[in-house]
């Protein structure tokens, strides 16, 4: 794999060996697969993720992490958080869905006056269901959790 030098390169793995990966350039897709040599596949393209755009304006795969609660993955798409299902459909594709938050990442980025909103902000999650995002340029740590 060529080194892309893109700031959004993202990698996370589950305990069963399944990994999520994005090379991190604009337009790159979300890949996933098992680290046993089985070929990886596209879990979601950035274009497909744009379906949330009418509500959230813009998506860009910015970081990912394992989902310790539900077993799949969580992806920061800059204006929202997307949950990747653990298990595939019968055709091998993986469902994904927007995680509803209040405010949305888009709105929070605006009100917090983050220079790049949540672009390339790393994401982490804990077994409690809490999701953390770091707007590292401003040094601000955010927590998304059940109210």
């Amino acid at each position, binding site marked *: 794999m060529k080194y892309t030098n893109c700031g959004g390169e993202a990698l996370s793995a589950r305990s069963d060996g399944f990994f999520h990966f994005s090379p991190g350039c604009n337009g790159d897709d979300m890949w996933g697969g098992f680290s046993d040599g089985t070929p990886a596949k596209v879990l979601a393209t950035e274009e497909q993720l744009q379906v949330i755009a009418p509500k959230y304006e813009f998506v860009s795969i910015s970081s990912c992490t394992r989902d310790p*609660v539900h077993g799949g993955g969580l992806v920061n798409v800059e204006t929202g958080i997307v949950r990747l299902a653990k298990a595939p459909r019968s055709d091998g594709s993986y469902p994904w869905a927007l995680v509803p938050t209040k405010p949305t990442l888009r709105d929070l980025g605006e009100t917090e006056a983050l220079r790049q909103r949540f672009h390339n902000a790393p994401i982490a999650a804990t077994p409690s269901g809490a999701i953390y995002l770091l707007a590292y340029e401003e040094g601000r740590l955010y927590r998304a959790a059940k109210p």
Partner: protein
Amino acid sequence: MRSSMSSLRLLGFVAIVSWASACSDKARAPTVDPWGFDAAPGAVADSAVDDAKPTVPAAETILAITRVADAKVWGTQLERILAADKNERVFVSDGKSIFVFEGGVASRYVTSEDLQAHFAVTAEPRILALDVDADGKLYVLASTTKRAVLEIPAAHEVVRFADVSVFGRLTVVSPDRLLATDYDGL
């Protein structure tokens, strides 16, 4: 980019049927939740997945987002590095040291000096990436003129895990199995 993917021996693209559709029609909810909210791991009801198009998985609740720390807590410019463990400890880094944020308080978990002892050079190590395993042990990818993965079982305790050539992201599968990216791939 495409050539980079070929080295991963990727066989092809799989069409994704989006569940996150913002379509306004209210589709019926799935009978079995494929997201793991109420199903055994790996259990997916394909008919439910394919027929229903909920905007969010069943049982998904709206999460409230709050700012829990800002730059004053760290007192330094942070890098694009973040991990969290089962005890709600959050780890960040400025590239030289690692901070832990716990109970609303931040402290220096690993210093540059802690790391430097594991490199046979005087150059200050640069922290490139980190991750945490299920037991809360940190794994750090650090670089001077050489690169290594270091284990951090507790604050200021550093154990050499492996010398490596990778230079990108790092993630933990299990305590004896890590994945990393490099100039040449995953």
